[in-house]
Structures are given as structure tokens and as C-alpha cells.
């Protein structure tokens, strides 16, 4: 079994399975939990799982970081810089949306005292 773990592809398998487990934990939390903050945490867990899946699968362990220093200029064995840029942007955007959501939840609780998503019935149906 440990020879299997030594191969390069097995890391990608493990990362995929692990991040999908995290995604399903987040999805389960999203579908069953009722409190606002728990829903926001579930969404954050789902986002983290996807970033983990992406970075884990794009990583090539024989290559090095995409930074040129001390005359080391061989770009052929550097890792890909685009996923880092994408994930950076996605992390900041996800955090901004969730921070906004938390402030909505705080104001809503101050006005109505309600924190459960299925008891939100300000609007008549």
C-alpha cells in the first residue's frame, strides 16, 4: 500500500477525495442547518473545499515556485501562476460576501429577534 502512496498520482486522488468530503460536509450543513451563522459557515466550508481541490490538483511536485531569484531563471520547471491569482481573487470575494451577510444577519436579528431561516415570514404568502 505504501508504494501506491509514493506515486505522484496518488496525492491527487487523496486531495480530490478529501476536498470532496469537505464539500459534502458543507453541503449537508447548508441543507440541514437553520441558523444564519451556521449557513454562512457551511458556505465558507464549501468554498474552502473547492479551493483545496483546485490547488491540490494543479500542483506538480517536481516543479518549483514561480519566482525568479538569484539568477534562477528556468521557467520550464516552474509551477503555474494562474491558479494562485484566481484563488486569491476568489478568496477575497467570498470573504467580502460573507462579511456582508453577517452584517445583514446582525441587523435582522436586532429588528426581529429571529435567527432561524425557516421562521422568516415577514412577507405574507
Amino acid at each position: 500500500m505504501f508504494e501506491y502512496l509514493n506515486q505522484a498520482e496518488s496525492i491527487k486522488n487523496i486531495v480530490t477525495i478529501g476536498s470532496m468530503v469537505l464539500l459534502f460536509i458543507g453541503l449537508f450543513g447548508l441543507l440541514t442547518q437553520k441558523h444564519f451563522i451556521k449557513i454562512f459557515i457551511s458556505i465558507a466550508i464549501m468554498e474552502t473545499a473547492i479551493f483545496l481541490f483546485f490547488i491540490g490538483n494543479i500542483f506538480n511536485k517536481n516543479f518549483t515556485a514561480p519566482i525568479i531569484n538569484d539568477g534562477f531563471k528556468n521557467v520550464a520547471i516552474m509551477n503555474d501562476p494562474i491558479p494562485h491569482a484566481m484563488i486569491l481573487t476568489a478568496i477575497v470575494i467570498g470573504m467580502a460576501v460573507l462579511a456582508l451577510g453577517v452584517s445583514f444577519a446582525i441587523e435582522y436579528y436586532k429588528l426581529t429577534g429571529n435567527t432561524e431561516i425557516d421562521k422568516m415570514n415577514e412577507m405574507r404568502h
Partner: protein
Amino acid sequence: MSSILFIALPLLFGFATPILNKFGKNAVVYTSTFMQTFLLYLAFTLLSSTTATIEIISIAPPLGISFVQNEISLFFVALFTLLMTLFSLYYIGHRKTNAYKNETKFFILLNMLLASSIGLVLSSDIFNIYVFFEIAGISSYILSAYTKSSSALEAGLKYLITGAIASVFLVFAITLIYLHIGSLNLAVISQGFETLPFNIKLLISILLLVGFGFKVEIFPLNFWVVDVYQGSTSLINALFSGIVVKAYLFVFFHIVYLFLPSGEFSIFLVYLGALSMLVAEIAGLRQTNLKRLFAYSSLGQVALIFTAFAMQNADAVQAALFIAFAHSIAKFIIFLSITSIQKEHSSFEIETLKELNSPFIRAIMLIAMLSLLGIPLFAGFIGKLLILKSLAVSSLIGVVVIIIVASLIEAVYYFKLAGFMFTKSEKKEKLKIDFSQKLVFSILAFLLIVIGVAPFLISGFLRESATVMLDNSAYILTLIGGN
């Protein structure tokens, strides 16, 4: 004159607003309106050129981001800037009696909404589309919770949670695309998408459908729409149904046409759209609240546009563009007139229409409702006729039946509304409409009547736009030069 100005100028205005605020609120409002008028002029100038061009940002495609200016994207840009300029004009009249608190922040959000809707339509890079998606989303969440009443906050919360879930699915789809195809440019992805194994193609398509489906309001992912429309003020509802949802529709189908050019899943999408329309119209029958009724009507019409786009041939896409144009203008009229009525009455039940005492508003709302129903001589008729004809040509008679049934149901409640509006009963005193608001309503109604009577004015242009939207090889040629 480059199309980057459509994004850069509203962003510049938004960032510089705290300094402009020192000169007073009026400075902010009038600068914003002036800038939007300038963008409208720019849109019509760009429309007059006939070749498709690209605007490069930082580095040439396929390695960098660029904006593609062809007939279809410039059509939507012109429509959005026109609607936003009219909205600002309406608001200038509205603020004399009912100004919002923190008006400057309201204008920042409006401009960000405009910039992101235009960016969604012009951009040619899938991650850039995701960023604009988020900008439009976050401005919409704050705009719907703007008045901070408990129903507005509930609307904002529901919108935010569904929007965040949609972004998660969209990011997942983008990461899978980058992992398997290796580029973020729409042209390169469209070339590489056909070579993927069927499993991954299906998975990415499902993720994109779910991710966009929340925003494009198809069944069953449209449970949030009606509550959000009820909680937000009707000023904001006009923006949502007139500008934002059209941008999302265009982006979704642009991606569908590029990735799946042979129409593999289009039958499924057509039936999904027809089902959404039927469900939305049936649910709208028993509504007694005016805003919820028009929200269900909006859902039905958007589902009709979805069905039309999903057919993936030039006649149907031309029909979709006609319906989109007529629907945006008609819904703008309706939601803006609800705002004018709201000044006098506090509740939104349908019965309050009985007390409406303004022949101008009654005439305008009647014109908008007749256009939405598809009565001939109004702009909505030609779109419905074209889509029914195109469905019949493709032998999808079931969908034709569903659409006709849904339109009849919609007619039932519109006639009920019109009956309330025109009953002779106790009226309150006459509603005063400001001159700028009358101007806005007249321009919108005039457009509906003119296009209804003489659709040949824009049908050639819309036919060209439809062909351009479906023409993958021309798009790829413009972007990466015929590889």
C-alpha cells in the same frame, strides 16, 4: 472611443464619490446622470460601426482579457445604458419628495450595477465573467436590503444566501474547466470543450446550469425571486427585472452556444423553460399583492426568453431579443409607476388600484400590460409571434401549447388588474407626477408603441445580432485570429 469607458467611468465615479460628496448631494446625483448620458451617447456611437472589434486589456487574447464589441453585445450595452439613464432621470423627479437616506451610496451602487451588467455582456474571459457576476450580485444584495426594514433585510438575506451558493457552483465549474482545458479564454475553451470525455462535459454543464440557474430564475431554482421582489422597493425591482436578469440570461446562453454548439442539451433546456413559465404563471393567479403578482409575471416572461434562447437557431434568438427588449421596457414602466403610486398609498394590495386617480399612469400601465400580453400593435406581439412560429417549425407542439396556456393565464390576471384600474369608484385626490417622470414614462411608452407598429425598424438589426450570437467561428476568429 473604447468600450472600456463603460466600466472605467462608473468605477471611477464610484471610487471618487466620497470626495464628490463634499460638494453636496446634488453634485453626486447630477454628475452621475451626466455620466450616464455620456455613456448612452458612446453606446450609440459604437453601434454605428459594423465590424466586430476587440478591446485589449493589458495583454492580447488568448492569454489576457479582452472585450468583444459585436452587434449583440452592443445591443445589450445600448439597452442597459438607455434604461439606466431613464432611471436616473426618473429618480431626479422622485427625490424631490422621497429622497433616500444616504443617497450618495445609492448612486455608487447604481453605477456599480450598470458597470457590472455591461461588463458581463462584453467580456470574453470566463473568470472575468465570474468577477462581474460577483460585483453585480453584491450591489444587488445591498440594493434590495437598502431601506433596512425587516422585510427588506429578509429579502437581502435570502438573495445573498442563494447568490453565494450560486458562486460556489460557478467557481467549481471554472476550476474544472481550467484543470481540463487549460485556458480561461472563451474562444480557446470552446475549441477544447468538444474534445473532453462525455463525463466531464456533463459534470461541467450541470455545474454551470446550477450556478447560472439561480440567477437566471428557472424552475426549481427560483424560489427566492418573489420574496426578494416583495421585500425590495419597486424602484429596485425595475432594475432587477429590466437590466440585471437580461445580462445573466445573455451570459448563460453565450456560454451555452460557445461550449455546446451542436445543441446537445437544448431540448432539455427548452422544456425546462416552458415548465418554469407554466409554474410561474399558475402561481401568480392567486396573488393579491401587486409586487408579488408582477414578480411572478416577470418570472414567466424570463422563462419565455429562456425557452427562446434555448432553441439555438437564428429565428428563435431573434424572437428572444425582441421579447427581452419589450419586457425590459414594459417592466420598467410597471415598476416605476408602482413607485409613483406608492407615494400616496402605503399598502400594495391590488385593490388599491381602484383608488388610483391619474389618467396618465393608467394609460401608461395599460400600454405596458398590453405589450406584456402580446397584443398586436405593441412591442411584445412580434416577439411572441416569432417564438411560436419557430417552435412550430421545429415541431415542438407541446411547448407551443404550454406557452399559449401560460399566456392565457397571464391575460386573466392582467385583465383583473385593468378592471380594478378602470372602475369608477371613490378616488383620492389627483396624483402629481413630476415633469421628468412624465418624460421618462412617455419615452418608454413611445418606444413600445413605435416598435409595435413598425418592428421592421429594428428587426433587421436583431436578426444580425442573433446570427452573430450563434456564429462561433466568427467569434473565435475575432478573438484569437483563426487558429
